[in-house]
C-alpha cells in the first residue's frame, strides 16, 4: 500500500513532532489509565471477594434475635426458599485494652461444630482454632489484633452480657462478614476498637450466661427465590424472639461498603476517560490539519509523481493512529501501575486472604480501541483534505490566508486596540472552531481540577455539620438494654462529665407507596443541646411536636413531605404500627435518620421513662478516667468519641483521598498542558514567519511572545469562569454518584479549592507555553525571510 520511503517519512514526522505527539498521547494515556486502573482494581476486589465468599460460604441473608431456643432453628430451615440455615450465639460487650483510652467493642461469636462446612466460615491465617475449655480460647479478627497491637497468647478481659470474662487469643482469622469493619457511629473503619472473636459454643454460652439458645442467623437461599417475601417469612418466625428485621446481603455492613466502593470505581471508569479522549481527538484534529497545510506542496508532489490520493491520506491516518498507539501503550503501563497502587491502598481497608493485583485486559482492549478510534476520527477531516487536494493547486504559490474584519473590529473602537492585539483577536475570529475546541479543552481541564476536589470540601462539610453542629456531644455510651432515666443521671455524676442527655434509639420500618426503609428512630429531649437536627439553613428542627422529623435523604427516598403521614412499624418491643405525622425535615449528611421526642417514642413502645444510651460532654482531661469507669459498668455495650471519629475521617482523607485527588489533579493538569502546548506549537507554525518578520522589523522577542501567546492567554482566561462553573456542575454530578446510604455528599467547593484549581491550571498552561515561547528566541530570521509562506 505504501512505500518504504513513506514509512521513513512517517517515522521522521513522528520524531519531528515528538513533543506534540507526546502531549496528545499523554491525554490518551490518562484516559486509558483511569479506565484500566479502575477496572483492574475493580476486578481485583471482585475476584478476591468472590473467592473469599465462596471459600467461606458467605450467607445470602442475615438475622439477629435476642434469645432463640436451638430447637427452633430447624423450623427456620423449613421456610420455603431457604437452602441452609446457620445459627450461632453472639455475646457483645466492651473490652478494655491497655494503651487505649476508649474501650473497644467486643463481639464473641460461637464457631460451628461438627465437620459440616457452615455458612460465614472464617479463614484462619495465624495460630489455631479455639478449643472448648475453661481457658476461654478465642480466634480474633486479624484486622483487630493488628490494629490493637495484640499477639497470639495475649489474655484479654471483656465485659460481655454483664459478666467479666477472660479470653485468650490462640488464632487470627479473616471473615467475609468483616472484610471491612465499620464503626457503629460512622461508616469508617475503626479496627482498633472493633474486637471480633470466635470461640467454641461452650465458651460463648459461658460468657452469655445461657445455654441452648442462639441469636445470630445466616441463610443460604435456593436459586430463583424472591428475597423480600423470604425476609418477611423469617421475620415472622423470629418476631417473638425479639428479632431485628432480617436483611439481605446487600445490607450487610461489610458487603454494602465494599459494593459502594466498587460502584465508585465503576463511576470513575465511566465518567473520566471520555473527557480525555474527546480532548485528545480535538488536538489530533488540530495537529493533523496543520500538518496537511504545511505539507501541502509535498502532498502535491507525491501525487504529481504518481502516488494515489489514498496513499496521501493513508499517511496522515497512520500518523494519527500512531499517536493513539503511543497513548494506548503509555496508558496501559500507567493504568497497570496505578491499579497496583490502588489495590495496595485497598489492602489497608479490605481484609481478604488474597487481594492480588490484576490487569484488566478487557478494559484495556476496549479503551485502546476507543482511543485509536478517537485519534483516527480526529484526523479524518484533515485526511479528507489531503485526499482531495489536487496536485496542480497544491504546488501553486498559496494566497495569503484570508482574513476579514470581524465582529470585534466593529464592536471595539479602533483606538483601543494595538495591531498585535488585533492580530490575536482576528486569529480567534478566523478559526472559531479551533478556538472553541481549545476553549472546551481548557474548560474541561479546569472543571476537572475544580470538580475532583469537591470530595475534600464535601467531607469537611459533612464532618463539620455532623460532628460539630448536629451532634455536639464529645462522647456517647449505649446500654445493653433500655434502662431507666436514672442511668443517665448517674453518668452525669461521673467526674469530668459536664452534661449528659438521654437518647432512646428504636429500629423502625417506614413504608410509603410500598417502598420500605428500615431506620433507627432517635428519641431526643425536646430541649436537647447536645444533639439537634438542623434544617437546610442550619436552624434547629424541634422534635417535640408529637410527630416525626425525617432526614431529607430519607424523605426523598420515601417520597414524603412535612405535613404528610408516614406509615411506621416499630421493630422492637410490642411492634406498634401507626401513621406518624411528619413535622419537619433535617438536613443530615450522615445516614438515614428519623427523630422523635423521647417521651413520644417511650409511649409508642409502651414503656416507661427509659433510655438506650446517653450523649455526653466530657472534659478532655477527664476522658481516660471516665472510660476506665464505664468499662466496669456491665450494662454499657458501646462507647464512642467524637474526637476519635473525626480523627478517623481526617486519616482517611489524608491517606486515601489525597492520593487519588493528587492523581486526578495531575491528569486534569495534563489536559491543560496538552491543549496549550499543541495550540502554542500550531500557532508558532502558522505565525513563525510573521513573528520572524516582526523581529526583523524591530519587535523584541517579548513583544512577539505576546502576539504568539496572546491567543492562548485569551482562551485560558476565558476558560476560567466557564471552567469554574463546569467544575461546580461536575462536583454536583460526582456528589450524586458518590453519595451512599451512609453519607450524603453536598456539592461543596471551598474558595481554596477554586484557588488550587486555578493555580494548577495556570501553572500547567505556563509550563506548556514556556517551551513554545522559548522557540521565539531561536527563530532563524534569515531563513524565514527567504522562504515563501
Amino acid at each position: 500500500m505504501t512505500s518504504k520511503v513513506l514509512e521513513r517519512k512517517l517515522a521522521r514526522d513522528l520524531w519531528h513532532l515528538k513533543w506534540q505527539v507526546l502531549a496528545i498521547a499523554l491525554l490518551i494515556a490518562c484516559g486509558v489509565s483511569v479506565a484500566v486502573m479502575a477496572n483492574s482494581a475493580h476486578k481485583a476486589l471482585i475476584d478476591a471477594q468472590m473467592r473469599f465468599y465462596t471459600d467461606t460460604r458467605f450467607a445470602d441473608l442475615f438475622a439477629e434475635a435476642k434469645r432463640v431456643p436451638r430447637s427452633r432453628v430447624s423450623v427456620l430451615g423449613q421456610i420455603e426458599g431457604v437452602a441452609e440455615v446457620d445459627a450461632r450465639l453472639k455475646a457483645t460487650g466492651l473490652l478494655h485494652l491497655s494503651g487505649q483510652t476508649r474501650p473497644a467493642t467486643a463481639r464473641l461469636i460461637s464457631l460451628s461444630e461438627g465437620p459440616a462446612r457452615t455458612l460465614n466460615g472464617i479463614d484462619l491465617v495465624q495460630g489455631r482454632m479455639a478449643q472448648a475449655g475453661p481457658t476461654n480460647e478465642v480466634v480474633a479478627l486479624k484486622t483487630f489484633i493488628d490494629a490493637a497491637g495484640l499477639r497470639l497468647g495475649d489474655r484479654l478481659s471483656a465485659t460481655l452480657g454483664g459478666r467479666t470474662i477472660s479470653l485468650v487469643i490462640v488464632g487470627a482469622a479473616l471473615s467475609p462478614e468483616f472484610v471491612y469493619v465499620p464503626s457503629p457511629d460512622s461508616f469508617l473503619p475503626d479496627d482498633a476498637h472493633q474486637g471480633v472473636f470466635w470461640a467454641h459454643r461452650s465458651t460463648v454460652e459461658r460468657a452469655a450466661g445461657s445455654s441452648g439458645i442462639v441469636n445470630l442467623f445466616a441463610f443460604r437461599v435456593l436459586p430463583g427465590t424472591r428475597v423480600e417475601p423470604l425476609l418477611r417469612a423469617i421475620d415472622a418466625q423470629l418476631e417473638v424472639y425479639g428479632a431485628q428485621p432480617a436483611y439481605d446481603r446487600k445490607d450487610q455492613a461489610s458487603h454494602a461498603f465494599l459494593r459502594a466502593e466498587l460502584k465508585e470505581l465503576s463511576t470513575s471508569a465511566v465518567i473520566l476517560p471520555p473527557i480525555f479522549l474527546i480532548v485528545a481527538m480535538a488536538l489530533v484534529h488540530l495537529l493533523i490539519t496543520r500538518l496537511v497545510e504545511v505539507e501541502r506542496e509535498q502532498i502535491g508532489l507525491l501525487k504529481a509523481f504518481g502516488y494515489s490520493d489514498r496513499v496521501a491520506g493513508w499517511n496522515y491516518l497512520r500518523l494519527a493512529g500512531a499517536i493513539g498507539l503511543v497513548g494506548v501503550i503509555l496508558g496501559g503501563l500507567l493504568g497497570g501501575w496505578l491499579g497496583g497502587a490502588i489495590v495496595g491502598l485497598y489492602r489497608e481497608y479490605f481484609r481478604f486472604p488474597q487481594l492480588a493485583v490484576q490487569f484488566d485486559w478487557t478494559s484495556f482492549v476496549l479503551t485502546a480501541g476507543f482511543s485509536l478510534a478517537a485519534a483516527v476520527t480526529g484526523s479524518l477531516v484533515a485526511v479528507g483534505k489531503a485526499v482531495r487536494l489536487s496536485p496542480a493547486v497544491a504546488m501553486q504559490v498559496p494566497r495569503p490566508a484570508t482574513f476579514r474584519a470581524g465582529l470585534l473590529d466593529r464592536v471595539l473602537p479602533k483606538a483601543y486596540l494595538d495591531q498585535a492585539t488585533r492580530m490575536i483577536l482576528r486569529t480567534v475570529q478566523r478559526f472559531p472552531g479551533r478556538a472553541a475546541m481549545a476553549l472546551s479543552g481548557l474548560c474541561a481541564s479546569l472543571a476537572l481540577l475544580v470538580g475532583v476536589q469537591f470530595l475534600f470540601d464535601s467531607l469537611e462539610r459533612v464532618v463539620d455539620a455532623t460532628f460539630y453542629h448536629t451532634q455536639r456531644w464529645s462522647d456517647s455510651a449505649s446500654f445493653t438494654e433500655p434502662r431507666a432515666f436514672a442511668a443517665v443521671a448517674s453518668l452525669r455524676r461521673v467526674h469530668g462529665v459536664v452534661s449528659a442527655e438521654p437518647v432512646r434509639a428504636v429500629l423502625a420500618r417506614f413504608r410509603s407507596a410500598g417502598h420500605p426503609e428500615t431506620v433507627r428512630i432517635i428519641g431526643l429531649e425536646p430541649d436537647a443541646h447536645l444533639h439537634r437536627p438542623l434544617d437546610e439553613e442550619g436552624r434547629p428542627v424541634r422534635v417535640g411536636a408529637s410527630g416525626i422529623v425525617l432526614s431529607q435523604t430519607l424523605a426523598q427516598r420515601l417520597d414524603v413531605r412535612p405535613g404528610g403521614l408516614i406509615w411506621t412499624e416499630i421493630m422492637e418491643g410490642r411492634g406498634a404500627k401507626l401513621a406518624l405525622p411528619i413535622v419537619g425535615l433535617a438536613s443530615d449528611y450522615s445516614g438515614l435518620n428519623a427523630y422523635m421526642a423521647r417521651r413520644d417514642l417511650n409511649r409508642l413502645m409502651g414503656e416507661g421513662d427509659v433510655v438506650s444510651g446517653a450523649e455526653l460532654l466530657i472534659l478532655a482531661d477527664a476522658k481516660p478516667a471516665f472510660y476506665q469507669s464505664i468499662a466496669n459498668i456491665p450494662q454499657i455495650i458501646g462507647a464512642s468519641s467524637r474526637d476519635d471519629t473525626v480523627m478517623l475521617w481526617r486519616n482517611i482523607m489524608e491517606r486515601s483521598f489525597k492520593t487519588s485527588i493528587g492523581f486526578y489533579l495531575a491528569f486534569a493538569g495534563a489536559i491543560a498542558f496538552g491543549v496549550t502546548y499543541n495550540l502554542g506549537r500550531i500557532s508558532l507554525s502558522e505565525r513563525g514567519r510573521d513573528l520572524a518578520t516582526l523581529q526583523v522589523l524591530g519587535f523584541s522577542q517579548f513583544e512577539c511572545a505576546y502576539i504568539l501567546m496572546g491567543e492562548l492567554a485569551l482562551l485560558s482566561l476565558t476558560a476560567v469562569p466557564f471552567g469554574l462553573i463546569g467544575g461546580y456542575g461536575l462536583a454536583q454530578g460526582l456528589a450524586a454518584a458518590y453519595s451512599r446510604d451512609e453519607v450524603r455528599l453536598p456539592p461543596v467547593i471551598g474558595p481554596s479549592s477554586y484557588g488550587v484549581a486555578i493555580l494548577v491550571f495556570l501553572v500547567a498552561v505556563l509550563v506548556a507555553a514556556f517551551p513554545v515561547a522559548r522557540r521565539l528566541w531561536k527563530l532563524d530570521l534569515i531563513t524565514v525571510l527567504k522562504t515563501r509562506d
Partner: protein
Amino acid sequence: MSVAIPSLAPELVFTVRGLSKVYQTGAGDVHALRDVDLDIVAGEMLVLLGPSGSGKSTLLNLLGGLDAASSGSACFRGLELVGASASALTRFRRESVGFVFQFYNLVPSLTARENVALITEISRNPMTPEEALDRVGLADRMDHFPSQLSGGQQQRVAVARAIAKRPTLLFCDEPTGSLDSESGILVLQAIDEVSREVGATTMIVSHNVGIAAMGDRVVRFRDGRVVDIALNPTRASAREMDW
C-alpha cells in the same frame, strides 16, 4: 568673527572593514562573505548585484543586524554591530532600518493600513499609515487584507511599512524577485521615490542587472567578495530602466 561653514563632505552612515561571515556546516566551513570593506554615504542608493551565493544578501543581513559577522567591523554612526547584543540589534532595527523582502512578509490577519500601523506604533517619529500608503499609491486599498491584494500591491504595502518610520536605512532584498515586470517597476518606482523623500540610505539586493541603473553605486559580488564598485553618474528612474 568666524562663520560656520557647513561641511560639504558626505556623511558616512556605515563603515565596513574586513567583514567576513563563515558558516560552519557538516560538510565544512562555507565562506559566505570574505573580508569586505565598504563605506556607505548618507542618502545614497546602492545596488548589490551578483549570482546566488555571492555574498550580497549576507552583507545585507549583517548590516541589517539580522546575523552576526564572524570577524571584521560594521559601524553604523558609532554603533558597532559586530558583537552587539541582541537587544541592541533589535533597537537598531526598530529605530533605524526599514526592510523590504522578496516575499512581502505581510501579516495576513491585518489590513494594509494595520500592517503599516504595526510599525508606526513602535516608532519614534513616524508618518501616519495613511500617508505612507498614499506615497506608494495605495490610498484606495488601505482597508484591504493581503489576501485581497495583488503581489505588486502587497509589495508596495511592504515598502510603505518600511518607510513609514522614516528610516535612516532602507534594505530591500530581491524586492521584485516574485513579481512580473510591470508590478516590479511600480515597486521599484515606489522604493526610489519614497527613499528620496525620506532621505533614506538604500541598499537593493538583486539578481537583475537591469536594476543597476537606479543606484548611485553598483556593488558587484562574486564568491563572497566585492569584485567591483561602479559609480553611476546619474541615477535612472525606475520607469526608464531596461527590465
